[in-house]
Structure formats: structure tokens, C-alpha cells
């Protein structure tokens, strides 16, 4: 069993007067894809934002590769090798695709090898290279957002609902891309509402409800247990597509 790259213990987050996270405990194992599932409002996005330092945890600890990060600022957390793809994608509409990606690379800029790998996964990005990101389609924007997270090798990818609002064909493209990433043993923490996507790519799963983790285990086990799915997520694999 690979060790944990990211460990959350007792993480609590308050926003203003609201107590959103009530003690979150789970691990993200090295080289695996960990799914974070749960109903709307369960606190999944808040958890990701807390990990990234965009919101400060009021209690608890977050350890990345043995190092405590809950008190670090967002840029410092990102510099440890953690890439973040928010729910809103966070692409810069006024900048071109090229400029968006350029921000993700270091001073060295692009290397042919990395660009080729990126275009192999997402051919549309090559096509729209010099176009302002704002005019891309939803799926293309999502590809750009993920592309930005992977153009440089990262130790951890934190992705929030990548398939939201996308057509099934595009979702399949994203699934393929993530499966390719898995081949290179990238560690991924993925929040998803789409259970089909989750079951296709996930190795481990953590389910949240009301600011707490209510179930952890392997994705395979959860996918087999329809009753458990129903109880935790109010759905079953067959219904949700």
C-alpha cells in the first residue's frame, strides 16, 4: 500500500460565521487517483480550497509529503508542486491559450517534448494556440485548465469537478487523459459529481457529507456496492450517467 502524499487530519474551516468543515480526515495516496465525492454543499470545494491555502483552516493539520502546509500561503503551496484546477477552471479569458500555458511554466518556457505530450492528450489546444481563451468552448477551456496543470510535472493534481457541464464526448476525452496520467504515476485528488467518471478513473474514494468524511475505501468496492452508493450519494451507477 503506497504511503500518503497528502494527509488531512481534523481539518476545520470557517468562512465568516459559517462552520463548513467539521473535522476532515483522509489520505491521498502516492501515485493513485483519490476521488472526493459527496452531495452538493457537502464541503468538497471548501476542502480543496483549504488544501490550496485559499481559505485558512481554523483547526487541524494538512501534511504534504511529511511537511505541514496548512499555514502556508497559496503561492508557497503551489510551489511545492501542487497544481490546482478550480471548479470555475480559472483560465484567463483575455490571455491566449499560449499565454495561459506560459504562466504555468517556469522561466525556461516550453519544451517541445512537453508540448507534444500535451497536444497528444488535447489536440484542440494546438489548434487554438494563439486564440484568446475566452472564446474557447466549455470543453476546450477545461482542457486548457487541465493542460495548465500538467504541462510541467507536478507531484499532486487537485481538480474540482472537471466534467461539470460538458458533453459526454468531451468527458470521455478527459477520462482518457486522466488514465494516461495515471500511467505516469501522477497523484491526483479529484472531486466529481459524475459517478461514471469517478468509477472509471478512481482508485480510492472518500465521501463527504456535511463537512465530514463519512466513508473511505477503494473505488472498486464502492462501485460494486449499489446499496452503499445509494446511501452515501443518493444514486446508483446505473442511473447516473
Amino acid at each position, binding site marked *: 500500500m503506497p504511503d500518503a502524499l497528502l494527509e488531512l487530519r481534523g481539518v476545520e474551516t470557517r468562512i465568516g460565521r459559517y462552520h463548513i468543515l467539521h473535522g476532515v480526515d483522509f489520505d491521498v495516496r502516492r501515485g493513485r487517483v483519490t476521488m472526493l465525492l459527496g452531495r452538493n454543499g457537502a464541503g468538497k470545494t471548501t476542502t480543496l480550497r483549504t488544501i490550496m491555502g*485559499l481559505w485558512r483552516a481554523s483547526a487541524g493539520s494538512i501534511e504534504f509529503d511529511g511537511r505541514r502546509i496548512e499555514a502556508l500561503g497559496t503561492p508557497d503551496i503551489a510551489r511545492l508542486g501542487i497544481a*490546482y484546477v478550480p471548479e470555475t477552471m480559472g483560465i*484567463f479569458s483575455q*490571455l491566449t491559450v499560449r499565454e495561459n500555458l506560459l*504562466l504555468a511554466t517556469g522561466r525556461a518556457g516550453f519544451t517541445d517534448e512537453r508540448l507534444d505530450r500535451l497536444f497528444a492528450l488535447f489536440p484542440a489546444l494546438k489548434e487554438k494556440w494563439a486564440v484568446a481563451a475566452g472564446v474557447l468552448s466549455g470543453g476546450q477551456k477545461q482542457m486548457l485548465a487541465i493542460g495548465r496543470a500538467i504541462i510541467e510535472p507536478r507531484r499532486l493534481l487537485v481538480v474540482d469537478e472537471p466534467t461539470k457541464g460538458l458533453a459526454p464526448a468531451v468527458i470521455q476525452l478527459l477520462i482518457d487523459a486522466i488514465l494516461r496520467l495515471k500511467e505516469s504515476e501522477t497523484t491526483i485528488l479529484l472531486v466529481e459529481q459524475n459517478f461514471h467518471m469517478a468509477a472509471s478513473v478512481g482508485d480510492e474514494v472518500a465521501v463527504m457529507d456535511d463537512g465530514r468524511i463519512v466513508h473511505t475505501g477503494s473505488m472498486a468496492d464502492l462501485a460494486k456496492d449499489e446499496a452503499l452508493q445509494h446511501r452515501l450519494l443518493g444514486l446508483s451507477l446505473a442511473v447516473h450517467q
Partner: protein
Amino acid sequence: MRHRWDDVAPHLVLPAIVLLALPVMGLSNWVVLTVAGLAMGAMLFLMAAGLTLIFGLMDVLNFAHGAFITLGAYVGIGVLGPLAGWTSADSWTLNLAAFGIAVVVAMAVSGAVGYGFERIIIRGVYGAPLRQVLVTVGGLIVAQQLFVVLWGPNAIPLIKPTAFRGSILLGSAAIEKYRLIALALGLIVFVALHLMLNRTRVGLLVRAGVENREMVEALGYRIRRLFIGVFVLGTALAGIGGVTWALYQELVTPQIGGDMTILVFIILIIGGLGSVGGSLVGAMLVGLTANYVGFLAPTVSLGSNILLMVLVLLWRPRGLFPVAKG
């Protein structure tokens, strides 16, 4: 790629107004007023450009921005006084040199004071809009009083260098030389800003940060460090605007910058917060409106820019070229 009307329309506003004015006022008047309007626009652009970037990137609206304009004007007096020998000579070289030095020093001093201002006053109120407005208004009050302490309450004259005075004739239109100089300076600064924003890595960060600060941080950049740089740039530009405007008015008072505050705000609102190009268009529109209406309907001229702002807001509530906030 076919452009939608919505995207193209804002770009047409400025040319449309310029062209529509032509039949209304006759060619020679039109030439004079258009140059006057564009020149005033150029000076206003210098005052506004920095503020739009500051607001776009840092969500800080510095109500004391006018104080930096005034500072530039007084620095102009301080520099051109000793250089009276150069300015009174009828030589383009010496005059330009003196003007250039005044501009550079005004930029440096306003920038330096801006640095202090950011550290002392602004730093503590990021993300708190109410306190920001209050604290910067307080800063403006104190600054205006300090100007009186240092330079006295009376207006101080500041005459243009000899070669800058007078007009050149274009057909039957007499165009003031200084207006052309101001226009040239404004365009030079615009081009420099444009290059900085679009060709440098820092500029890339600023443009991205204006859209979505959080995401830039999530990409590993310590954008707070950029804040101080942009703030200093903004106040430095205001300083240039101040000295240029002061020479145009030929009179410096402690309120000279504060009086421009409302026009600068109107420009920001019309142009779209965070957009340098927008502030150029907005500034030109304000300058042209002031001059065209001043000629056509003098009674309405004082309020005309406010009416312009209302019209633009009704059409585009976020300004002509808003920067999309991610």
C-alpha cells in the same frame, strides 16, 4: 472569425463621436477642438491609466490619487524654476530637455511617495473596501493640507517653455503646439505600457492578475509583490499627468489634482476598470466631450462628462472594455 456586434461596438464609439462632430461645427473648428480634446484626453490618460491598473489588479480605489497629480505639478515648479534658463531660451532642444527632466523627476518623486503611501496607508486595508475608501479620503485631506503647508495656499504660475508656446497653422485652424506635445507624450506612454503589458512576463502576470488574482497565486506567483510595483507605477504616471497638466494650465494650486479626481473616476468607469486601453478611450472621450460641448453648448459643458458617464453606464454597466473577472 466573425466578430459579433457587441464586441465591435465599443471600439466604434470614439471614431463615431469624432466623425459626427465634423458636420456640426465646420472643418476648421473641428480640427482645433479635436486636437484640443485629444490632447486633454492624453493628459487625462496619464492621470487615469495607473489608477485603472491599480484597481484592476488590487481592487484598491485610491481616492487620494489626485494628490499624486498635484505632487507632480508642484515638482514641475520645483524643477523648472532652476531651469528657467533652459525654458526661456527659444530652443527646442533645451526646452525639451528641461521638460524631459521635469517629467522624469515628477515621475520619480510621485513614485517614491507612492511607495511610502502604499506601505503606510494602503497596506493595511486590502480587501476592506469601506475602510479603503475612508482611509484614502483621509489621505487626500491630509495631502492637500500638506501642499498648503509646503507651498502656500496661493496659486503659483508655471509658464510653458518658450518653444512650446503659440500655435501652428493648419489651413485656417490654429493648433496649439503644447497640445501636440501632450498628445505625443500620452501616446508614447500608452505604447510603452502596452509593450510592457503584452511583451513582458511581468505584464503577463499583471494582465492575468487583473482577471483572477487567486488563480495567479495558485500557479505559484507571489502576486502581492507585484502590488507595490503596480501602485508605484500608477502614482508615477499620475505625477507625469500632473506636471503636463500644470504646464497646460500654467497655474498650480493645491487642488489641481483633486479637481481632476472626478474626471479620472469617470474615465475609469467609462473605460472599464482594469483596462489600460479602456482608459485611453475613456480619457479621449472625456477630453473630446469637454471640448466639443464647451464649444457647442457652453452652459451644459461642466456637467456633460457626467451625462456621458450615465449614458455609457446605461449601455454598458461595466464600462466599454471591462476586464472579465474570472
